[in-house]
């Protein structure tokens, strides 16, 4: 039995409880009574994957169905991978400890581009052919992917049978229902894929064929096997009534987000032009306060967690935020539960809100300012004024805070040296503000942390057309920022620009990259999002081996009239709108948030009703 073999070696590795299952909340079923087995794979380690809310939702949702069984599977750490390879332990799922190659569906959630090589490594560990074309015609081992990265799934197209676009709560079950039905009929893999392609939200990449022009851009996308020309993402229409788990799998070992979590809203009204999540998750939908309270209570009681966080892209945009927090705090304070509120915005940070936050946490405050000058913040449509930033900091300082963390991006479209120096100047003005406040925290100096990411243009954003700064440009800007900071009260940290470059290549790439990803993995690339594993040289070698010019994807402006690798996918936001927004950005003109005025992104037409 696989369990004995695993146990024989389990004590040789770090944190063995990650590899043996048995956690409270995990679902065990009798496999003889199961029609469809689904391995939900997260292409990173347990500690990270177990923190992912989407997995918790789809895990519970699938397991609600008596005859379906969804199990979890993660990338093993390096030590356990070595043990698995040495002892021929195939990648297995944590509930049954059965090899995932025996499963009907092997589903990956693609949360970030730098996890792509882990998918290949996991398929290899599982003993499943890495290329979809090499898989059996038998109806089994359907390898599927969902998550934000599949809005441009082309660099992964050769490895997957199916991509699931948009929200999975309904379409996953529809896909499994079709599978169960066709399995009984003895259908082949291709029969199934052909029918699956007609489920809304299901994209079968092998039915779509790309041809390229001599300049490397896409000439046309042709469709075969009767598959639809355009594939639309799926959304949940009535978000307040959407399935939400009443229990989580509670890990033994500490994970990154070790708490209960309730999704309070989906989508975002803001339209920050760099933010992919802000566009691909539209329309904005929220849950009622009562629903949220009920879900918080239920989850805390069933899991035993003493901390709950509200998940969303921007929690303070909930229309009932104040009464919601009041109601939640009533419950959490009396039950000694910590309530954590990530994702707050600077511009609607009221004193009463701060009072509530202060009740729940004592650590620092983090704000995303993104741009150092008002001009640049207008370009990216971060509708935040310096006055609002200052006002928020004032409220925070008067409320007893003495440290603030500010997020910025570097390499944004139209950015100049002035904008970089502006980051340091903004921080300086916040320091001056601190010392101008009479009732500031006594005897404490102020600490401003500046965290700078490199801008990565992403599909389905107005900036999808933009080139990324070259490494030289970013290095110049990083040095300029460091030189502009002249006090120890400001701490600067920034991301490795090589990582961001790989990210943009994979994000905006096309099908020709599949080979390069495979080559990079063959060269030993995995866990690319981990500093200690990231190996840019190997990646560049892989691109060179495959004859790929990375600047074609990373540093080239994509034309408005160019066929983009994701143009056959419909994420409800129209390309015309994205072009319009791109042009508006270059004029440094902002677009108001969706609540103030509809900017005609096209989502309401697809949904068939106004968003507000």
């Amino acid at each position, binding site marked *: 039995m696989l369990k004995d073999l695993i146990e024989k070696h389990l004590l040789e590795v770090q944190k063995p409880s990650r590899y043996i299952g*048995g956690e409270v909340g995990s679902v065990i079923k009798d496999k003889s009574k199961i029609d469809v087995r689904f391995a939900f794979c997260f292409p990173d380690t347990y500690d990270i994957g177990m923190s992912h809310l989407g997995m918790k939702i789809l895990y519970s949702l699938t397991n609600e169905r008596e005859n379906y069984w969804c199990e979890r599977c993660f990338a093993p750490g390096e030590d356990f991978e070595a043990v698995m390879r040495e002892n021929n332990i195939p990648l297995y799922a944590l509930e049954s400890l059965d090899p995932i190659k025996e499963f009907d569906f092997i589903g990956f959630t693609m949360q970030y581009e730098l996890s792509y090589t882990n998918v290949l490594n996991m398929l290899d560990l599982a003993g499943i052919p890495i290329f979809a074309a090499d898989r059996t015609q038998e109806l089994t081992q359907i390898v599927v992917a969902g998550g934000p990265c599949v809005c441009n799934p082309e660099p992964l197209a050769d490895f997957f049978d199916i991509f699931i676009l948009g929200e999975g709560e309904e379409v996953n079950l529809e896909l499994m229902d079709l599978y169960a039905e066709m399995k009984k009929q003895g259908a082949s893999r291709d029969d199934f894929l052909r029918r699956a392609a007609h489920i809304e939200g299901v994209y079968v990449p092998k039915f779509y064929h790309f041809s390229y022009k001599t300049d490397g851009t896409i000439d046309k996308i042709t469709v075969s096997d009767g598959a639809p020309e355009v594939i639309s993402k799926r959304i949940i229409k009535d978000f307040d009534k959407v399935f939400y788990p009443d229990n989580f799998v509670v890990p*033994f070992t500490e994970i990154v987000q070790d708490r209960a979590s309730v999704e309070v809203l989906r989508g975002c009204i803001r339209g920050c032009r760099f933010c992919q999540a802000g566009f691909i998750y539209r329309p904005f939908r929220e849950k009622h306060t009562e629903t949220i309270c009920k879900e918080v209570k239920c989850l805390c009681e069933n899991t*035993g967690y003493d901390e709950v966080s509200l998940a969303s892209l921007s929690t303070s945009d909930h229309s009932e935020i104040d009464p919601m927090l009041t109601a939640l705090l009533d419950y959490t304070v009396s039950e000694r539960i910590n309530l954590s509120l990530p994702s707050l915005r600077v511009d609607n940070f009221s004193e009463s809100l701060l009072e509530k936050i202060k009740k729940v946490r004592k650590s620092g405050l983090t704000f995303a300012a993104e741009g150092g000058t008002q001009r640049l913040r207008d370009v990216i449509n971060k509708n935040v004024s310096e006055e609002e930033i200052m006002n928020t900091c004032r409220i925070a300082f008067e409320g007893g805070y003495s440290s603030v963390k500010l997020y910025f991006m570097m390499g944004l479209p139209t950015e100049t040296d002035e904008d970089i120096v502006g980051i340091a100047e903004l921080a300086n003005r916040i320091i001056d503000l601190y010392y101008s406040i009479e009732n500031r925290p006594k005897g404490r100096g102020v600490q401003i942390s500046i965290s700078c990411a490199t801008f990565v243009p992403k599909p389905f954003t107005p900036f999808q057309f933009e080139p990324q700064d070259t490494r030289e440009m970013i290095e110049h800007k990083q040095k300029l920022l460091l030189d502009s900071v002249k006090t120890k009260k400001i701490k600067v940290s920034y991301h490795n620009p090589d990582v961001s470059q790989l990210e943009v290549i994979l994000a905006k790439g096309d099908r020709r990259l599949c080979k390069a990803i495979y080559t990079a993995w063959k060269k030993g690339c995995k866990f690319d999002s981990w500093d200690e594993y990231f190996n840019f040289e190997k990646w560049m070698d892989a691109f060179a081996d495959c004859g790929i010019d990375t600047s074609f994807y990373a540093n080239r402006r994509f034309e408005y009239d160019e066929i983009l690798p994701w143009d056959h996918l419909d994420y409800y936001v129209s390309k015309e709108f994205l072009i319009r927004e791109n042009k508006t950005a270059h004029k440094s003109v902002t677009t108001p948030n969706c609540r103030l005025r509809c900017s005609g992104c096209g989502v309401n037409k697809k949904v068939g009703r106004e968003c507000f």
Partner: protein
Amino acid sequence: MIRVRATFEKCGRAKYISHLDLNRCMLRTFRRSGLPIWYTEGFNPHPYYSFALALSLGFESSCEILDFNLNEEMPYDEIRDKLNAVMPEGMKIIKVAEQKQKITAITEAEYSFSLVSDDTERLYGDIEALLGMPEILIEKKTKKGIKTVDIKPSIKVMRCEKNDRSVDMVIRLPAGTQTNFNPTLFIDALRNCNGAPFEPEKIRRTGIFCENNEIFS
């Protein structure tokens, strides 16, 4: 405030829960149980609970001790049942009772294990030879560095049985707040004899004792 003592089993998959993780796990188990757990009254109130002895990762046990406090009196069996309803797989409360002895009264712990070998005859001989030595010196890692200790006087062999595929042993070792010897010290000493190759299996704590062989309770 009512002080209670639970004796619990930690077997199967639960043996991979580390001591640190067990703390978090019990905290959540208490919360799930809905029992009126007593919280400390300091600046940062938290449930008060403590384990009598830490158990090494990978060991099973049939006699772990957990002390905690409740706000109100309840039948012991009800406390046990409420906890068992929400315990993780492999962990089970055997009984809940009053705290008779102090944790400091613990002197010894008993362990059973199997030493799997192709040549149990020779392994049995190796064990006899090792136990017959005037001293068994082992290197023990302490907070102050590596120390050489003679464990010979501390080992009580309760059982040593030669079977087809293994030699099965039950030994008692000093435990408690003063000295704690892990059975792996003995197993490593045996391995260092370079005798018949073997693999230890099914290490399980089977008893916690006080002076005069009295079972700790």
